[in-house]
């Protein structure tokens, strides 16, 4: 049976049973206000709920009864006829409920007889005739003692009532929420006490308590789980009102909106449920109001008339993920940019350096609304900031992805329960802290001699982790517990929002199920902590809030650096406008830069290890001989000390580019303003206000290994097929053109989708298109669709280059007709894909 219906039946039956007990007194004291109020409340609730549940018969009857009861409540005298009529109505309601319980449907028939009489009565007309209602007359005389009606004398209809009552009661019982909350608190205390006992036993190896304590521990865990389960409710409960809201909004906004709900039965703690209800409602309203376009706009954009808002929920690890997505117009990034400047949130210069994802995040700032006109649904700019703070309050995160013209998706990740959280206990500056395990990704031990070494770029500590650079904060310093001088320690890799970072701590103890206690009001202003807890040994420690601690990244690490994209595996291509650039000096005083994504590692090599052979510098590096190249003739390999180099690796081989000094890593737009003819130099760009030379890595690779780009087998080289390379970034065009050429293809480069389409419209021969997906004006997906629409080019293989390959992007690519999807920096993959596609061509030919 439908959950809602079951709840309704259970509740109504309970209320009816209560009213039943009072009905006898009602006959004796028809004008008792309290009884009247109770009956009124009952019929009122039934009427209200029936509307939701589509039970028209019951609704009509209850409505008629409510009218009469309202009159009585307002002072109309209650006559004997009235009592009979009310009793008859209640009996009828019971009969209908009974039928619904049995068949899940309203029984056939109507209640015109009763409704007419009720109508007369509410209009104050004396009842035309005594109600011909059998049930009222069958009711026995009221007994003296109203508590227990004469059981032995029970008439048949009453027995069925009792049976039905029992049947419904067997489905579920109602427990006051406070009772459950108290139970949870008690269990939390029990867990604490258990932990304390375990701690004591841990200190005394040979204890008689060991075995019974283990049992106690298991039972406690089971109890905890059981109590937790009683508090679990399906997320659908928080969604109940949404279909109605969306329906009303559709009408109000004159839009056609469909609400899809998936995973409504996903369960979570009711406390969490209560707290996400409002943010969810707000987001859905926003989608309907801002996201979904008006009909005309949708049709003009070639979309279906009906807009869709999709709500999905599922469990993932210890949390629940809720996604709210619409297929509307997407966020107005230009509008957000303008608004951010207008509101003084960011300066022009800083804004230019922000990625689209960062721009999107402005909508979570207080008082930020881009709606040009305020509707009464949303657009007052009081909302998204509250949504985010509400979600963060319960230890959750909210992210958003948006694609212009395609829609926006909000992803909320929240813990299943708030009360008991497994946490990692760490030490920093002599104090212990708990870090919720939810946000801990992994633990890395860092020391000077070992595999993982803490390094610094200017003042920013970083750690290389699987060829990625991880920004670090030192917990001790962030918490002002003293300076940190040694470069060793444990790195707790954490995630806060879409930011992955490492926190250096002095020690890691163990994990413990901690019971979160709210923080003192005097400490609540400290963003680094989310709560307090009592450990097994009885001491109080603070719980670290990863989001709060991550704020320190902005202070310690240069702002742009904090947002290095590589670790953000589940974030979609926010590559768009800005690129992480490694800025260094070599030779001339002009700073030079190279996209960080091309650099495999930064190394400092002991000069004594550098060998010279045949005029070339070589160094033994990771069991291989690595050639070292100066970046230009003015750069010289140092004679002593440490030589900084940039290592580029590809296909198992590495090249070291000799530089004088690594300066910084910045997040910046890469607009090459003056191109250069000098080999090895793509051109000049203004980075952080300084003219910077952009290095062409592609130039150096063949110098180090003559065959670097000539690995493809000779057979493909002979075919000399033509590849149309589409990329808005000069850098990638410059980088990929020689690469594809070297693989034996002719390359025609186009700087935009429009340019590419123009080329395709000509008679030129093209065998293959390689296109960037993310381009201004017309992106790769639209380009692909346009190509598919060209009769002569419809079957042309298209390989998409994406900064970040997500499942969704691949799916979308499949729809528009991409033959293959290659990550932007995967040069081997690209060549392989090109070869594969041209091999297909061969077979087809």
């Amino acid at each position, binding site marked *: 049976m439908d959950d809602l219906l079951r709840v309704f039946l259970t509740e109504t039956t309970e209320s009816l049973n209560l009213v039943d007990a009072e009905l006898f007194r009602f006959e004796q004291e028809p004008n008792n206000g309290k009884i009247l109020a109770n009956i009124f409340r009952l019929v009122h609730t039934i009427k209200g709920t029936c509307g939701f549940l589509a039970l028209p018969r019951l609704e009509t009857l209850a409505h008629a009864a409510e009218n009469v009861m309202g009159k009585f409540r307002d002072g109309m005298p209650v006559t004997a006829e009235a009592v009979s009529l009310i009793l008859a109505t209640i009996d009828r309601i019971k009969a209908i409920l009974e039928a619904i319980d049995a068949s899940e449907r309203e029984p056939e028939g109507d209640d015109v007889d009763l409704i007419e009489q009720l109508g007369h009565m509410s209009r104050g007309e004396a009842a035309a005739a005594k109600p011909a209602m059998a049930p009222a007359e069958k009711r026995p005389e009221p007994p003296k003692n109203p508590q227990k009606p004469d059981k032995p004398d029970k008439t048949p209809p009453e027995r069925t009532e009792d049976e039905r009552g029992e049947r419904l009661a067997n489905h579920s019982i109602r427990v006051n929420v406070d009772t459950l909350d108290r139970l949870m608190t008690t269990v939390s205390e029990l867990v604490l006490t258990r932990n304390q006992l375990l701690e004591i036993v841990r200190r005394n190896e040979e204890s008689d308590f060991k075995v019974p304590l283990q049992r106690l521990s298991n039972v406690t865990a089971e109890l905890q789980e059981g109590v937790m389960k009683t508090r679990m409710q399906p997320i659908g409960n928080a969604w109940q009102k949404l279909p109605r809201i969306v329906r009303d909004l559709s009408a109000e906004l004159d839009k056609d909106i469909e609400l899809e709900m998936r995973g409504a039965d996903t369960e979570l703690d009711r406390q969490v449920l209560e707290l996400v209800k409002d943010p969810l409602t707000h987001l859905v309203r926003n989608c309907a109001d801002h996201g979904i376009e008006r009909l005309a706009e949708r049709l003009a954009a070639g979309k279906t008339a009906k807009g869709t808002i999709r709500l999905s929920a599922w469990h993932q690890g210890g949390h629940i993920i809720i996604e709210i997505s619409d297929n509307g117009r997407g966020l107005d990034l230009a509008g957000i940019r303008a608004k951010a400047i207008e509101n003084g949130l960011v300066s022009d210069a800083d804004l230019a350096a922000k990625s689209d994802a960062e721009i999107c995040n402005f909508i979570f700032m207080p008082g930020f609304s881009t709606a040009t006109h305020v509707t009464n649904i949303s657009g007052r700019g009081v909302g998204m900031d509250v949504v985010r703070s509400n979600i963060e309050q319960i230890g959750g995160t909210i992210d958003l992805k948006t694609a212009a013209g395609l829609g926006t998706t909000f992803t909320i990740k929240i813990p299943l329960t708030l009360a008991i959280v497994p946490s990692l206990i760490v030490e920093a500056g002599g104090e212990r802290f708990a870090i919720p395990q939810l946000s801990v990704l992994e633990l890395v031990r860092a020391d000077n001699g070992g595999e993982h070494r803490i390094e610094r770029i200017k003042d920013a500590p970083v750690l290389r982790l699987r060829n990625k650079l991880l920004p670090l904060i030192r917990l001790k310093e962030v*918490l002002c517990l003293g300076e940190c001088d040694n470069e060793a320690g444990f790195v707790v890799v954490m995630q806060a929002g879409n930011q992955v970072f490492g926190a250096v701590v002095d020690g890691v103890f163990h994990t413990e199920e901690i019971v979160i206690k709210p923080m003192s009001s005097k400490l609540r202003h400290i963003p680094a902590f989310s709560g307090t807890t009592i450990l097994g040994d009885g001491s*109080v420690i603070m719980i670290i809030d990863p989001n709060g601690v991550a704020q320190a990244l902005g202070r310690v690490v240069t702002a742009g650096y904090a947002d290095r994209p590589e670790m953000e595996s589940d974030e979609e291509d926010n590559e768009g406008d800005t690129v992480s650039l490694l800025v260094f000096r070599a030779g001339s005083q002009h700073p030079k830069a190279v996209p960080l994504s091309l650099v495999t590692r930064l190394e400092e090599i002991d000069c004594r290890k550098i060998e010279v052979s045949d005029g070339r510098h070589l160094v033994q590096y990771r069991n291989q001989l690595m050639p070292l190249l100066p970046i230009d003739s003015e750069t010289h390999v140092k004679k002593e000390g440490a030589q900084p180099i940039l290592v580029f690796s590809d296909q198992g081989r590495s090249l070291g580019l000799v530089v004088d000094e690594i300066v910084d890593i910045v997040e910046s737009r890469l607009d090459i303003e003056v191109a250069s003819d000098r080999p090895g130099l793509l051109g000049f760009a203004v980075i952080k206000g300084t003219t910077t030379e952009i290095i062409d890595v592609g130039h150096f690779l063949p110098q180090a290994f003559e065959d670097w780009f000539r690995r493809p087998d000779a057979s493909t080289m002979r075919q000399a097929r033509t590849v149309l390379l589409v990329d808005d970034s000069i850098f990638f065009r410059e980088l990929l053109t020689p690469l594809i050429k070297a693989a034996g293809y002719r390359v025609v480069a186009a700087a935009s989708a429009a340019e590419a389409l123009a080329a395709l419209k000509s008679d030129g021969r093209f065998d293959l298109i390689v296109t960037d997906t993310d381009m201004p004006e017309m992106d790769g997906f639209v380009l692909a669709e346009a190509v598919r629409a060209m009769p002569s080019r419809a079957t042309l293989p298209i390989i998409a280059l994406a900064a970040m390959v997500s499942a969704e992007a691949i799916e979308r690519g499949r729809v528009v007709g991409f033959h293959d999807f290659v990550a932007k920096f995967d040069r081997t993959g690209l060549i392989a894909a090109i070869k594969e596609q041209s091999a297909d061509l061969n077979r087809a030919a």
Partner: protein
Amino acid sequence: MTMNDSTGLNDYVTFTTAGQMFGLPIERVQDVFKPTRITRVPLAGAEIAGVLNLRGRIVTAIELRTRLGLGARGGGQVPMAIGIELRGESFGLLVDAVGEVLKLSDDEREANPINLDRNLGRVSAGVYRLDGQLLVILDIDRVLDLGAEAVAA
């Protein structure tokens, strides 16, 4: 501050800190305990001595000396704590020593002398002239209101 109307007498828990005697109405005092294992809280205001576990409750310890600008306690001197409940939260006011409970008449309480130290004046609810010393009655709500003036640290 409740008052016994018939007699005008109130009970005050007295204590000393930095040589000054203070009093709190007894109905505001939950308990008196010796604070152990105080965990300091990084980044908290200076007057927050830390948090501690008192029979399963988490108590925020407030150092009265710092709160009133009375200078640090000498080394080796162990503080006592006066437990106070405020809006569902537990606080422990760290003082040097706890004295006896005095029954004092409301009539004898005097207003703050005009030249009273500003820090003290802000939290004082009046002064009693006892034999040999002065007793400053604290307004505990104001003591625990670590408003902007205090939290800034």
